[in-house]
């Protein structure tokens, strides 16, 4: 589904990714772990098409097409979703309005019929309920005044409504207490399926107790230095990133 080859990217002229190779097949969940500054967030932003991230070499194939040629909204329409590490607050735009524009934006781009107001309301209420989110949260401005846990839950709600083929979860566990982590992980697990792949980016092994990956990759110095099964996460937790970074050098 997603194939990253020799990806080099820089931010403000500073090289951050130095040849990332990674392939995720349909239905698989891969974890990318790595120390601070290893390029984890850069990888997620390069995939989602944020301004200011310059790709100098390599390619990213998504469903067989060149992902890097697309605008952010076109990537979303192709089925890519990024759950933000720091979800953005948008005063004056309610969660409902945001979701409606997003879902219908995807549908129009795909040449599908837009949902009417009733269908949309029903869909969002049902998804919100499954995540334990109140109607009140849907009426509030996007992420404004939300706690850290509420913001992350809101990301998962967006993912549940938009049903992407490929989700990148960027440090979705950061800032969450254990209860919030479980709710978020349950939400993510409910979305797992044979047609949906995920890339879970995390600093800590903790999240992977709840979202169990098929593969674990260690990112250090802007490259994947080791890959393995889910047990690699535990090994990493024991040894620490230092040993891996040393091995990568």
């Amino acid at each position: 589904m997603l194939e990253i080859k020799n990806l080099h990217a820089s931010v403000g002229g500073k090289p951050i990714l130095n040849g990332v190779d990674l392939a995720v097949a349909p239905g698989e969940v891969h974890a990318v772990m790595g120390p601070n500054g290893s390029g984890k967030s850069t990888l997620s932003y390069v995939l989602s098409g944020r301004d200011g991230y310059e790709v100098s070499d390599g390619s990213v194939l998504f469903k067989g097409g060149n992902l890097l040629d697309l605008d952010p909204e076109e990537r979303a329409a192709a089925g890519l979703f990024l759950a933000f590490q720091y979800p953005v607050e948008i005063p004056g735009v309610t969660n409902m309005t945001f979701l409606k524009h997003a879902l219908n934006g995807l549908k129009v781009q795909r040449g599908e019929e837009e949902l009417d107001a009733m269908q949309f309301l029903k869909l969002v209420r049902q998804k919100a309920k499954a995540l334990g989110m109140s109607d009140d949260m849907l009426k509030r401005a996007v992420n404004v005044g939300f706690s850290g846990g509420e913001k992350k839950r809101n990301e998962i709600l967006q993912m549940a409504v938009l049903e992407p083929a490929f989700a990148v979860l960027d440090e979705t566990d950061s800032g969450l207490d254990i209860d919030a982590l479980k709710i978020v992980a349950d939400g993510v697990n409910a979305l797992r399926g044979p047609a949906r792949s995920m890339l879970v980016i995390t600093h800590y092994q903790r999240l992977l107790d709840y979202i169990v990956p098929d593969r674990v990759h260690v990112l250090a110095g802007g490259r994947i230095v080791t890959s393995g099964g889910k047990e690699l996460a535990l090994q990493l937790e024991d040894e620490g990133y230092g040993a891996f970074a040393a091995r990568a050098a």
Partner: protein
Amino acid sequence: MATLVPIDGPAANPDWLSGWRAGPGNGTAAAPDWLPPVRAEAAGRFAARGLPNRRIEDWRYTNLAQLTGLELDWAPAPAEVAKESLPALVFGREADCRLVLVNGQVRPALSAVPALPEGTILTSLAEALATGHPGVADLLRERVTVDDGALKALNDSWLEDGYVLIVPEDVTVDLPIEILSVGTGGALPPAYQPRNLIIAGARSRVTVVEHHVGLCIGGYFANVVTDVAAGPEAIVRHCKVQDESKEAIHVALLDATLGRDAMFDSFCFTLGGRISRNELRVSLDGPGAHCRLNGAYLVGGHQHCDHTTAVDHAAPETHSDQLYKGVLDGRARAVFQGKVVVRQDAQQVEGHQMSRALLLSETSEVNTKPELFIHADDVQCSHGATAGDLDAEALFYLRSRGVPEGQARQLLVEAFLNEAIDAVALAGMRLPLEQNVARWMGERPQPTP
């Protein structure tokens, strides 16, 4: 930046005032005896001052030099306007009340004024002067002699027509009064100077929606003065949508005095005009009087808009709140000047003021000038100003969720203005205002990458 042309009075271009010197000359209504000397006194005041120039502090950021380059028709003949060509009623209901002015003159044949509550008068100034309504003469004679800048003097020198609304004590007018002011050009750009009066008796309630539109592509000069007198506990709501032709010069001064516990709620939405200025002066004369002055503007191209306010807290326990939010594109320039005066004996006063601007282009510009003169000690006053671009993070967030860029920008602009539009107390106004935002975003030239 616009070229600064110094003006030292009307003499800078002797021709452009020749029509004005002829004085009001349509002879549409008989003038009471007191009027000609008042006009003459005002004409002298204007001639002595000349047009405002940028050396005058209040006009530092707004340059009217362009006016002197225009040959104007100061006494335009009544223009042919078909009723069908007028914009739809703001609220689109059969029973709505609308008084139509064309080039500053009330046109009964184009208007539709249903029966209003007993004693309520909605008419033209020409009619009110001809019939000698005592309340109108009293207020006018009091206000006309006030020396308050050259453009007011120019308007004082004319005093011919405009709308007059009188609501007696204890009367509530439920129906919003819609005033449609149409500007339309002839062989020469018309200059017109309506004088409007709103007199709200004690404990009365009324809402006025002013809609200023241009029915021509070319320019014209509108110099509007509106006097508002709100008695004790009266509530006057004034909502103005300024959507003049893109070549028009629109200058408006609204002067309101508020009695004890009276409330004046103003909202000004500026979309049109090549150069526009909306100036509000509010005197909180009675204890407990309260005003809310809110505005929103959407300007692009070479438009220049100016919102200037002056609130005088002349009595204790008076409150004022001001919020102006605007969006600028192209080479547009906006000005917000807000003056708040708290008199020495006016204790327990609250005055708050905020101006926020969204600059969608690098060539747009906003000038903000708050002025606070506080002579009492038990007061709470605040002011603030921001200017910036659309939030790039929010824009990327929306796009990453599948919202196309143009739509995402529109959504963020609407969200920005919503705070000011939310403040419009008249519920039915929300939709027309939001539609204007959508239309503006749709017509906006796409930035070249």
